[in-house]
Every structure is written in C-alpha cells, then in structure tokens.
C-alpha cells in the first residue's frame, strides 16, 4: 500500500469512527432519566391491559400520590426475562419491575434486583409460602402482587352422564378409576400440558410433589410413581397423546370442546370458564395417598431493580407499597383473576365469590418452585424434569430410565 493510499484509508476510518461516536453518544443521551422526580418507569407482563384499563389507572393514581408520573410498558412474560437481563446489563433497568416469580432468583443472582433490606419494603403481610419464591440466601427480592396455581377443572355434565361422583375422588387410584369410567362411557378422561418447556414442569409438579418426591432427587421411587401415573393414563387412553405438545391454553381448548372430563389448569382460566357451554367445577389436585397435593405457585412479584441513582428507591418504594396495599391488591387480583397474597384480602375475595375458596385453599397449600433455597438450581432441575416427562410419555424411555438420566444430568451441573 502506498503512503497516500494508507492516509486515505486512515481518513476514512477516522471519519467512520467519528460518526459512530456521534451516534453512540446520541443514544446515551436518550437513556438519561428525564428530570428529577418526573417520570418513573414500570415494566409488567400484562400486555393485555391497554391505555385506559383499570390497571393503568391504578398505576397513575399510585404515581400521583407519590408525586410522579408512571411510564408503563407491558411485555410478553417470556420476553420480559430477557428484556430485564439486557436492561440490567445496559444499566437502564426500569424503576419498578413486575416479573414472574421463578425469575426472581435468576435476576437476584445476576445482581439486578435490590433486596427488601436495602429498600425497606414491607413484606410482612405476604403469605410465607408465596414469599418463598422471592427469597434467596435469606434475603427477599420483592413483594408478591398476586398468586395463581393449578387445580383440576371438571365437566359436571359429562361426569354426571358417566356416573362419576366427584366427591369420591380423594387420591390417585380413585381419580384413575373415575377416568376409567369416563372412558367406558365413550368420552375422554383428562387433558394437561406436558410440553417441553417450563410450562410442562409447572404442570407435572403437583403430581411430583403429591407423590412425596423432592426436586433434589428426581429419580426417587415416589418421582417414578408420579411419572408412571401420567404414562399409564396415556397408555390406557385416559389422556390424549397430544398432551406432549399441549400448552396450558391448548389443554383448556380441548376441555372447552366438551369431550374431556378434566383439565389440569389454573386460576387464570376463570374468565374463560364463564364462556363454557357446560357446567363445571373445580377440585384440588389430589396427592397420591389422599389430601391436597402441593401445586407450584404462579404469579408475579413487584420488585425494585438496581439503579445507579439510589435516590430513586424512595419513590419506587412508595409505588410498590401503593400497588401492594390491601385495597389495591383486591382490585388488581380481581382484574388478573389471581389469588391475593395477603390473608385478609383473600377473605374479601371469598366474601365476594364463595366459589373462590378452592383457589385460596390451593394457593395456601402451594409451594414456590425456587423455594427450599433451590434458587438458580431450579431452572436446571426443571429442564431435566420436563425432558424426562417428554421422554417417558413419548415412549422413548421408561419412567425410571428417564428420571435416572434426568437426575444424573441435573446433578452434573
């Protein structure tokens, strides 16, 4: 290369670099929070609520009483985890983040969330079994805003015709007997979601825990009995083969079609249940030897992500306290079809709708997935668990072999 050509090249590089620098600083300038107390940002996984919704109004009124405006963005639940991690990396986390409970331990591990010790958030009113999902190494990283969990929805009309008395369903054998009767009557038994994602583990956990198994030993005899229960249902035609690919929504759609006696589904279907063209009822998921199986808790936490400007925590705390005060919780959880995380509010929910008792009981019996101080070990275990469920149900492995492989893989990490 000649000298002049080299110089030309350098000039080009310099020019480009200059333009890049200009663009980068331009971006950075936009990221600065606007004004001192002005706008506080909040991200939530409720994209279904538009501008004029009750939820949005509640946020603005909370902002108003704290003397700020709240700028809210609703994301898809799965999207929000990645968005929150990236934002933490870029140093532009929202002031308040409402996020799915099993993600809390991941974000806390990442150092993206403040603990309640630091921000002086009051969590004393929340039920301990719900708060468990937001705790890691003795610290709490948010306040539950509402909880949901799983139970068995049943088609009253169909069970009546098949001659099944729901009151007789107390444990696994009686449930299986009921499914056999339904099949004998020419109808379909039960549908659920055993998909190869977190949703599949969420659905399997009531049976897994209901057998007495622990997430620290995936290959225990109890765990094998739970997976064998599902496998046998598929083999005998009590449950459709499509469960391997079903999401909870597809499973609900199958149930809504009217051919299935049961679906394992959540609190969030209450609004859809009103549209069913048959009578329905709800029973808790039975444990193997009777009683209610602990189902995993679903639902979100309100938390305060780490900010460079720690002065913002004061207002953020006021916002979170406002969103989680009993009156507002009642409004929020009614809109979301969630069970309130506070006992007093649960009683109000039951007073308004006695049918809600089943859900309150189920939530009180429920367990956080990341609890037992599993924290960020849970995602690894869960991935192996859903893989084992898929392996056994699709027939590529026996329940024992699938769970042994799962335990080996989970322990290796």
């Amino acid at each position: 290369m000649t000298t002049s050509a080299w110089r030309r090249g350098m000039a080009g590089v310099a020019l480009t670099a200059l333009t890049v620098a200009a663009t980068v600083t331009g971006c950075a300038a936009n990221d600065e929070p606007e004004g001192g107390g002005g706008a506080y940002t909040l991200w939530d996984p409720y994209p279904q609520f538009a501008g004029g919704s009750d939820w949005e109004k509640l946020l603005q009124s909370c902002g108003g009483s704290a003397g700020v405006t709240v700028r809210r963005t609703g994301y898809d639940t799965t999207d929000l985890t990645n968005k929150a991690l990236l934002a933490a990396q870029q140093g532009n986390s929202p002031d308040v983040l409402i996020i799915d409970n099993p993600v809390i331990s991941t974000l806390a591990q990442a150092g993206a969330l403040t603990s309640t010790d630091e921000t002086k958030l009051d969590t004393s009113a929340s039920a301990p079994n719900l708060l468990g999902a937001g705790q890691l190494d003795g610290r709490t990283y948010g306040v539950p805003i509402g909880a949901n969990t799983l139970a068995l929805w049943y088609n009253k009309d169909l069970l009546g015709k098949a001659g099944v008395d729901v009151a007789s369903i107390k444990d696994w054998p009686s449930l299986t007997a009921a499914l056999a009767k339904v099949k004998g009557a020419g109808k379909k038994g039960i549908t659920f979601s055993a998909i190869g994602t977190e949703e599949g583990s969420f659905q399997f956990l009531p049976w897994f825990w209901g057998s007495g198994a622990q997430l620290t030993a995936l290959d225990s005899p109890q765990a094998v009995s739970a997976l064998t229960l599902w496998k046998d249902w598929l083999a005998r035609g009590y449950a459709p083969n499509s469960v391997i690919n079903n999401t909870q929504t597809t499973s609900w759609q199958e149930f809504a079609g009217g051919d299935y006696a049961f679906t394992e589904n959540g609190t969030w279907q209450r609004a859809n249940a009103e549209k069913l063209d048959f009578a329905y009822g709800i029973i808790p998921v039975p444990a193997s030897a009777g009683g209610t199986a602990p189902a995993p808790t679903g639902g979100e936490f309100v938390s305060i992500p780490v900010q460079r400007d720690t002065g913002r925590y004061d207002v953020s705390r006021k916002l979170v306290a406002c969103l989680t005060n009993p009156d507002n919780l009642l409004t929020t959880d009614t809109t979301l079809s969630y069970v309130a995380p506070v006992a007093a509010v649960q009683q109000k929910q039951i007073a308004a709708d006695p049918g809600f008792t089943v859900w309150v009981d189920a939530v009180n019996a429920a367990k956080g997935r990341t609890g037992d101080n599993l924290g960020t070990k849970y995602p690894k275990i869960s991935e192996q668990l859903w893989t084992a469920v898929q392996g056994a149900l699709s027939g590529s492995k026996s329940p024992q072999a699938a769970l042994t492989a799962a335990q080996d893989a989970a322990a290796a990490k």
Partner: protein
Amino acid sequence: MSRNRWTAWAFLAPVTLYLLAFYAYPLYRNVELSLRRYTVRSFVSGGAPFAGLDNYRDVVTHPTFGPALAHTAVFTAVSLLCQFTLGLALAVFFHRHFPLSRTLRALFLVPWLLPLIVSASTWSWMLNSEAGVVNAALGAVGLDPVNWLTSPRWSLLSVIIANIWIGIPFNLVVLHSGLQAIPDDVYEAAALDGASGTQRFWRITFPLLRPVSAITLLLGLIYTLKVFDLVWIMTRGGPTDSSTTFATWSYRLGFGSLLPEFGPGAAVGNLLIVAALIGGLAYARAQRRPRW
C-alpha cells in the same frame, strides 16, 4: 487528499457505518459471548472470565450435539432436495403458458406470504394426534392414527414436510424467472434437431439454469439452516430432542430456560454461521469454475 476523495468517503460512510453497527458488531459480540464463561451475574456486571474454546468443547461433548447435528443435516438436505425438485418441476410446468397458469402460480405463492407463525400453527393443528385433519383422513381410509408431533419417530419428518411446503414457492419463483431468461430459439433449434422433451430438459434447461439453481440452493441452504420458528412452534425441538436442530438448540440454551446459558448458546449459533459460510464459499468456488 483531493476533494473528490472526501466526497467518495462521505458517500461510503453511511454504508460502512451500517455494516459495522448491524453486522460486524453483533457478530463480534456473538463470538466474544461464546469465548467467555458467562453467568447471569457476569452478564449483567461484566468481568466474565475468558474461557477459550471451553464453551465449544462443552457443546460438542453435550449429549444433544450428535442428534442436533444429524437432525440439522437431514432437515437441511431433505428440505433443499425436495424444495428444489418440486420447485423446478412446478416452474417447468408453469413455463408453458396455459389458461389460468398465472392464477395458479399466484396461488402457489400463498405459503410464502403467510406469516410463519400462522403456517406453523396451522401445520401443528393439522398434525395434532387427537383432533388433526391428517389423522382424520388416515382414519377415513382405514389407517391407524400417527402421532406426528408427539412421537420421536415422526416429529422430525413432520417439521421437514412443513418446511418443504413453505420453501417450494421461493424455488418456484426464482427458477421460473430463470427459465424465462433462456432464449426460445435454443428450444426451437433443438426441436428441429428432433430432441425429445426429456432431452430438451436435461441438455438445455438444466445446464442453462445452472447459475440460477446454484444461487437458489445457496439461499435455500442459508435459510434452512437457520429455520427456527417453524420447529419451535410445531414441536419445541422435542419430544426429547427428536426434532432439535442447531437453531432450536441455540435458542433453548440462550432463552429456553429460566437460567440462560449465553456462552454455549452463542457457540452453537456460531457453528451455524460457519456452516452457512462453508456453503457460501462452496458457491463462490463453483462460480469461478469454468461452466461445462
């Protein structure tokens, strides 16, 4: 430096900038991501230790690697072969103008125009074990239902079939325009010499279509290697890895569980880029070679 040069560089700056910001930088970040041991903590606060090729070693020795590699190869090869063959057959068919040929050809473009989420969801409904129309049709002719998406034996085939269906229009359109570029007098001369239809195809159409075929196959290769949404929507790569390709595996590592593994995820993504690059180089080499 002359004024002209400055002007030249000024014109060049936007595209250089664009390439750097949207191609070079993400690529660099992806390579960097794959060479460090990221945890969620170091992803956020920085300081992930340099791990050399550890992520690649982990990925290659992972039990999913073998199946994913085989599935990616089968998925890509079978998809390309069938898309190209069927696309070429249809292109030749539509090349003779007959009544309604334009309308029919336009109809063949529908799969291409549909958003992938729509076509993938439609396929997964059609192939549903319980309520799918395909199993209903099998039942009508007295065959047993097949668990298209939920059996490890069939899941890969199911996603391949759907992918072929989606890829045919692209092949049809490109090859059809290639056919129109072949001058008619060549065919007339061949007809005068008494060449049969088969001879005309293999001796004239196929060789003259070679450059177009090559680029169609290359674009098809790159596109098929990175097919993600179709597989993810239809089977999530399952059951138990039976339809996992590198693309779905990379996504699952990076975003599919609650605890992301960015390093290995990026490593798998980079392996895909290398595969596409090899395809591109093979194409460039084939282009330089004397034709026939």
